């Protein structure tokens, strides 16, 4: 490959299982606080996120959907806020994920509450503002990636509370299915909006596992969730988009299903959950690209710049050849770290190392 591909060309090449000019980078999300450190100026909004992606040349620049115009989060009491779906989040000062909180509980506990609940709709003014701004600025060169956060399972489970939803899967299967279907429809609609706004790449984030494994046995995944996952992927691909699938946790017990539903790449391959990017690349590189490899739990918050360089070079050497590798943090560029300055320096080191040593041909 000749040098000088645009980030978008690089993104297409890697998902087409070809070697690009260098290994592309993907970040699913970056915290305002870390962006401030890296740009060295106060964060004011989406244009700063775009500048951040540009400065670091993150090829897959992931941008999520926003709330409707004029919508504001409610604070029922101090330290707790409700989101657009009425779900409760804990607001922790100084430890926020870019203006987000930590989930506490859902809104819907019974079938009656479901019937009465007015679900947000995808196609409303404001939803695509951030994406459109980004696409207008860098969409010609970058793989501006429409991000469907909380996919299908995650959003359905957060509507009721994870524990409750898992009980419904066993004891009230039709109610569980009703919730999944509702959120499947929302995700399909979001996908349409992104693609209509120019997205050639979609990242679907649907956390369905913890470090131990999927939240449910594979047979229940197959029965309840998989049909909607598969159908969402097909609807995105039918519209011409390439699909990066994202879930935290140990996905190995359901990997076969993820491969079968036709995704182009898997992210973020969490090593702390026992996921091994080198092994996945070796075993599946002809059908699946892998995205991740830069540990954001220990390495980037706590390691030295030397450790970071060593780790990034090691992933490049072990999983870089033949294409199919996208480098990225193993979750996101968050800000829940003890020392944000150190973290920001390490993020810059990872990006610089990836750009320098990720040039093809590798080995």
């Amino acid at each position, binding site marked *: 490959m000749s040098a000088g591909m645009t980030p978008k060309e690089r993104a297409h090449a890697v998902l087409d299982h070809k070697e690009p000019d260098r290994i592309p980078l993907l970040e699913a999300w970056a915290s305002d606080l870390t962006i401030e450190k890296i740009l060295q100026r106060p964060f004011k909004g989406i244009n700063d996120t775009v500048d951040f992606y540009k400065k670091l040349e993150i090829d897959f620049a992931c941008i999520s959907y926003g709330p409707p115009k004029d919508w504001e989060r409610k604070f029922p009491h101090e330290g707790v806020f409700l989101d657009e779906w009425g779900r409760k989040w804990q607001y922790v000062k100084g430890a926020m994920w870019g203006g987000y909180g930590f989930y506490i509980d859902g809104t819907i506990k019974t079938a009656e509450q479901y019937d009465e609940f007015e679900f947000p709709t995808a196609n409303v003014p404001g939803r695509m503002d951030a994406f459109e701004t980004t696409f207008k600025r860098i969409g010609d060169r970058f793989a501006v990636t429409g991000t469907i956060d909380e996919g299908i399972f995650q959003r359905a489970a957060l509507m009721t509370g994870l524990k409750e939803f*898992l*009980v419904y899967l066993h004891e009230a299967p039709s109610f569980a299915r009703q919730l999944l279907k509702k959120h499947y429809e929302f995700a399909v609609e979001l996908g349409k909006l992104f693609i209509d706004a120019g997205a050639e790449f979609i990242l679907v984030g649907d956390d369905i596992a913890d470090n131990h494994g999927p939240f449910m046995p594979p047979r229940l995944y197959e029965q309840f969730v998989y049909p909607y996952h598969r159908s969402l992927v097909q609807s995105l691909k039918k519209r011409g988009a390439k699909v990066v699938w994202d879930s935290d946790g140990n996905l190995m017990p359901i990997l076969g299903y993820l491969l079968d539903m036709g995704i182009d790449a898997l992210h973020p391959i969490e090593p702390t959950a026992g996921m091994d990017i080198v092994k996945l690349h070796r075993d599946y590189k002809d059908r699946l690209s892998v995205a991740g490899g830069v540990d954001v739990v220990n390495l980037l918050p706590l390691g030295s710049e030397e450790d970071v360089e060593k780790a990034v070079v090691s992933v490049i050497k072990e999983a870089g050849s033949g294409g199919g590798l996208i480098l990225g943090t193993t979750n996101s560029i968050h800000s*829940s770290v003890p020392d944000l300055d150190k973290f920001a320096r390490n993020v810059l080191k990872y990006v610089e190392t990836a750009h320098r040593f990720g040039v093809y041909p590798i080995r």
Partner: protein
Amino acid sequence: MQSTVDNALTAGMTASQVIAGIRKGFEEIGRRYEAGEYFLSELIMSGETAKSALETLKAHVQMTAREGSAKVVIGTVEGDLHDIGKNIVSMILLSSGLDVYDLGIDVKSADYVNEVRQTGAQILGLSALLTTTMLNMGTVIEDLKKAGLREKIKVIIGGQPTSQEFARQIGADAQVGDAPKVLKVLDKLMEA
């Protein structure tokens, strides 16, 4: 579940025998979970099943504090409102015949100390999901020391961000990684 418990009691089993049976069930579920044969939803369902068995049992037998059964005070530390893991642990302990005093979520250090003093508990369970709030576990241990209670109680911590190393740093007696492991950890601790 109700009929299983009814049948057991009709057949002449005592409440403690039923509870011993539930504990055995939890041990097997814990084994399967660790082996990767069981998943979180099954863990939660087993907790729900045990809960309904205990309720049935209570309806039949006068459940009073059993002679010699250990007392546990448990709760999610101050500033933290998460309780899925804590509730599973609480249910496992309750179903295994321990007297559990569950203080819920966002529990102030002073409230743990008071409860420990009042109940004379031998075990204290502290839970946290956030890296920021888990630091409050150390405060509770310091306050137990100040109240002269630290030597009388074993402190077990748990929750996603905690580790054996963190338990050592703050002077806890043990850390539980996965909820089902709590019985094993407890047995080891009480033997020591």
